């Protein structure tokens, strides 16, 4: 009996094995056959199928517009929801671009009155009203919602008080005057407020729908959101893909040509590239080690984004208290070599704080108005002089041991080592690298546990202020502990004046002061290298906020 059992087991294994192998081969055949059918099918079709496939790279952690904070979620929400405004193809904000057909701003810059379009509808067929906006925005501020991005509303009167449990919802300066009119009262003039109305946290949901679903369950699946944007979310297969389809109820549906968009979730850079090469993906971000392969193709492009990277010195303790030492370390970096040979992703050398492309006064590029660059790249002689001067001022013969903290990703390790080598070569100093997991690095920065850190900052809104007010003495994000009363005053002035020209001048002056003190050591402005199939048209890649804008994209010439 026993022997038979063993033989039976062996036979089963062999059978199973052969079945498995046979399974492979039949599957292969059917796979390639269906592929052939597909291609011949599309070849006979005259017009291009309006479908697009992109890589979202991460499963959206949270599609609840009230509480979400991450890029992948904002990418999706921006396509399926509509705010009062929407940035258009060339990155401008114009009346009528979103749900508001127009707005009035009071002369003191404090009261905004938005007039909603007629005939705008939620995907459940109900009209979108100003009351939905009032309800949604106050829900974000409700302390019970515990929204991390609630502070994006702190420009509004009474918002901070309500959110911190010191005021009531009625005292918040958000009020629907009737179905079509929304009035917002700000604490102080904030030109960036208009742009914020296009931002994820400001995207509304329908009041009755939220009350039915519950705030905490909002956005947990395709049927727990009500849609108002160019697309609706049809499917969400966690860690696999999200499928969007055109929204037939969208107010501007004639501008939307794509019928279906699939957002795949592929994290591995190599796998992504293979999926681009075989035509599964229509666009991808080029990983730096594959740069050489795509760099000279017609599909290649470089897209700068509003993010700066810098060496964050500890301005409060240790040798980096001294501005000349900070200058020495900043000037001793060869940014050109760093961006071209180490990053290799199209990023550009930074010799100022505010990245190019951020609009200043009159909508012109702020980086063209501010008088940057503020120092010369790779100025080794000056760096050595500053080091000598700094050491004299500190009364030191030589530098003590210095650690340089960076993330523990392979990219950050490589970056840190390159900088370490430059400081060694140009200044003759030995810097110790300390790689830390992201949250541990942030914790160390908050506690001032560092000499210098490789850090970056992405724009919260499309205005230079997002890069400047963080270096005010009492700003929570100022973990460089930079402090200059003159700087603080200029930023405060800029934040309170309704005069936009003066505001701009104050910000320029402030940036100059910070650079003269070398509050931080600018390193590079981030850019992404992209490859896009030539048949993809008008797929907009915004400089901040989201990674793509699908509204106007279409497919043309794929089947020729």
């Amino acid at each position, binding site marked *: 009996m026993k*022997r038979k059992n063993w033989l039976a087991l062996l036979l089963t294994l062999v059978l199973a094995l052969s079945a498995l192998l046979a399974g492979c081969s039949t599957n292969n055949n059917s796979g390639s056959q269906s592929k052939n059918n597909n291609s011949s099918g599309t070849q006979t079709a005259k017009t291009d199928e309006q479908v697009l496939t992109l890589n979202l790279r991460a499963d959206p952690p949270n599609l609840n517009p009230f509480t979400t*904070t991450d890029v992948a979620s904002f990418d999706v929400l921006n396509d399926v929801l509509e705010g009062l405004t929407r940035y258009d193809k060339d990155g401008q904000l114009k009346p009528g671009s979103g749900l508001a057909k127009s707005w009035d701003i009071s002369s003191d810059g404090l009261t905004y009155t938005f007039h909603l379009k007629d005939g705008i509808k939620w995907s459940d067929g109900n009209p979108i009203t100003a009351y939905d906006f009032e309800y949604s925005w106050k829900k974000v501020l409700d302390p019970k919602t*515990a929204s991390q991005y609630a502070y994006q509303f702190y420009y509004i009167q009474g918002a901070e008080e309500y959110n911190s449990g010191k005021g009531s919802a009625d005292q918040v300066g958000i009020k629907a005057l009737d179905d079509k009119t929304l009035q917002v009262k700000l604490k102080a003039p904030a030109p960036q407020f208009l742009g914020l109305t296009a931002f994820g946290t400001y995207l509304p949901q329908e009041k009755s729908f939220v009350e039915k679903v519950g705030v905490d369950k909002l956005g947990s699946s395709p049927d727990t959101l009500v849609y108002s944007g160019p697309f609706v979310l049809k499917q969400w297969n*966690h860690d696999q893909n999200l499928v969007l389809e055109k929204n037939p109820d969208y107010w501007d549906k004639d501008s939307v040509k794509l019928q279906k968009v699939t957002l795949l979730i592929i994290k*591995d850079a190599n*796998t992504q590239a293979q999926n681009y090469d075989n035509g599964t993906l229509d666009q991808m971000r080029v990983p730096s080690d594959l740069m050489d392969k795509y760099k000279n193709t017609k599909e290649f492009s470089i897209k700068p984004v509003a993010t700066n990277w810098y060496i964050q010195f500890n301005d409060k303790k240790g040798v980096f208290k001294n501005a000349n030492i900070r200058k020495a370390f900043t000037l001793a970096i060869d940014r050109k070599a760093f961006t071209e040979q180490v990053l290799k992703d199209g990023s550009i050398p930074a010799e100022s704080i505010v990245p190019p492309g951020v609009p200043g006064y009159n909508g012109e590029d702020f980086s063209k108005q501010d008088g940057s660059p503020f120092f010369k790249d790779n100025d080794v002689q000056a760096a050595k002089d500053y080091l000598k001067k700094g050491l004299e001022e500190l009364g030191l013969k030589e530098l003590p041991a210095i650690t340089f903290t960076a993330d523990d990703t392979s990219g950050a390790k490589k970056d840190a080592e390159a900088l370490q080598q430059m400081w060694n070569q140009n200044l003759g100093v030995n810097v110790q690298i300390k790689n830390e997991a992201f949250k541990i690095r942030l914790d160390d920065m908050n506690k001032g546990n560092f000499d210098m850190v490789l850090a970056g900052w992405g724009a919260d809104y499309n205005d230079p202020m997002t890069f400047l007010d963080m270096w005010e003495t009492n700003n929570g994000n100022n973990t460089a502990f930079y402090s200059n009363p003159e700087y603080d005053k200029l930023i405060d002035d800029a934040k309170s004046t309704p005069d936009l020209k003066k505001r701009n001048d104050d910000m320029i002056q402030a940036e100059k002061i910070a650079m003269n003190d070398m509050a931080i050591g600018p390193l590079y402005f981030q850019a992404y290298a992209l490859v896009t199939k030539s048949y993809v048209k008008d797929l907009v890649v915004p400089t901040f906020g989201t990674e793509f804008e699908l509204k106007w994209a279409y497919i043309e010439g794929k089947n020729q």
Partner: protein
Amino acid sequence: MLNYSIKRFVYMLITIWVIITLTFFLMHMIPGDPFTSEKKVPPQIRQNMLAKYHLDKPLIVQYGYYLDNLMHGDLGISLKYLNRTVDDIIKQSAPASFQLGVQSIFLGVVFGLFFGIVAALKRGGGWDYFSMFLAIIGISVPNFIIATLLQLLLASKLKLLPVSGWGSFKYTILPSIALSFATLSIISRMMRTSMLDVIGQDYIKTAKAKGLSQLQIIWKHMVRNAIMPVVTVLGPLFAGIVTGTFVIEQIFSIPGLGKFFVQSIYDEDYSMILGTTIFYSIILVVMMFVVDIAYGLIDPRVRLAKGGK
């Protein structure tokens, strides 16, 4: 047998409780918290968030909450995926990892045993060297390299199989093969060694003298005695593989549980860290129990020893 099982079950519960407790207090020692973020949040907002998820309470109170919820089968809400519960995430991600794990273990065990047995029988011959070669590759080449090579060759160049994704059986083939190499190597080496031990035993000579056929000797006397060490490693190996593998799942974009083991620690997603740890420990402990039972089935002496206690 029943007594033994009850005793084992109680030990299992205690083990898991110790693991939970250690994990709970260790993970709270990592600097930062789930809501540490690049953009500094005003203190009142932080307070709102901590309060909502009971993180503002003393640690021991949080521990009490956690155990209480756990008793009711509630693993809590993920602190990264704010509108998903840990139960949901595990339920949604575990099947893919499980299927992949079972398939790769199956491949690894079948081929591993085969190569191990053949190598021992033909010791010093071509098969022996071939199986050694395979085992060295399987052990020394990380599976992500094997995965990438398979992907490049079979999917990108020959276009026989999909590059990545999940859905039907064809998506599972490459990752299963890539994942099976390590198992295959361990098992074939182990099987070879223990087969060689057995081959030299007197009872094999006796069996031969009795006039049993070669196949009977191999199956009844050699394999059955030699397989014990393999069964021992198979328990933990199985638990480790079916709960998900970070790298292979990432390379093939498989919606499995593997990434949550790693990513939850980076995110300091406390409930997810505990959830994955508990899930893994339960499978591991159960597998150890199954292995013990299997001993008894394969080798009657094990059962006798326990009965005598």
